[in-house]
């Protein structure tokens, strides 16, 4: 119990706010108690050494190099948030591509190609005798016109949707970059 009290006084000693009386208490106790004396000596040696160590100046440019190292490492990090972001992006693009194929490209082929062509074949068959050339010209021009109209509509929709999606991705990226900058500051 006595040693514990002396230990507290020793802490005060190293804090530098110890009274003369308390200092004498330590000395007196240490004369009687070998263990405390030894501990005190060890600690004082260590702290004296610590106080006499030369101050090491950090070399110029040290901090900027450290920060650069941190930033470059972060750029290639496998931060789960960033990985999730890329996965989501790729998944979104895949869904988008599938929808484009299913609802735009396939209908375009179907509408413009097979059905109208089949119709044309029928028309051609019925009109073999009377007006082969005329029918061909008329259906071909009708077909061409239809394709052109449809293509314009589809192209417009396609461009609109692509623009919207690209804008959304840009907005997400800008937002993430901004938030990361906030976190860094």
């Amino acid at each position: 119990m006595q040693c514990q009290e002396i230990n507290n006084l020793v802490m005060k000693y190293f804090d530098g706010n110890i009274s003369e009386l308390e200092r004498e208490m330590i000395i007196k106790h240490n004369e009687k108690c070998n263990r405390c004396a030894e501990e005190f000596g060890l600690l004082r040696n260590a702290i004296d050494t610590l106080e006499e160590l030369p101050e090491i100046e950090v070399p110029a440019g040290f901090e900027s190099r450290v920060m650069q190292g941190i930033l470059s490492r972060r750029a290639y990090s496998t931060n789960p948030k960033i990985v999730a972001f890329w996965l989501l992006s790729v998944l979104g693009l895949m869904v988008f591509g599938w929808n484009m194929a299913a609802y735009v490209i396939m209908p375009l082929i179907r509408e413009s190609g097979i059905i109208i062509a089949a119709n044309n074949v029928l028309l051609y068959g019925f009109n073999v005798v009377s007006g082969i050339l005329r029918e061909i010209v008329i259906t071909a021009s009708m077909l061409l016109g239809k394709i052109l109209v449809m293509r314009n509509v589809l192209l417009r929709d396609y461009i609109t949707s692509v623009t919207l999606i690209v804008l959304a991705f840009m907005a997400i990226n800008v937002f993430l970059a901004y938030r990361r900058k906030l976190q860094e500051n």
Partner: protein
Amino acid sequence: MKLPDKYREFLILFHHRNLSYQEIMDITGESLTIVKNRLYRARQMLKEELISREKEREKYAVPGNK
């Protein structure tokens, strides 16, 4: 020996850089109680480490040789 950083930092600031409590509070942003506590714990840990080293040395020292 390796004191945990949060203790070593306070030992260095107080004993090596000779900063006051107030200055250490300003630098680390910790309260006075935490600064005092960390210093106390740091010294205790340092002492325990030194004592265990001393014992280690006595164990392996060859008595009476050289």
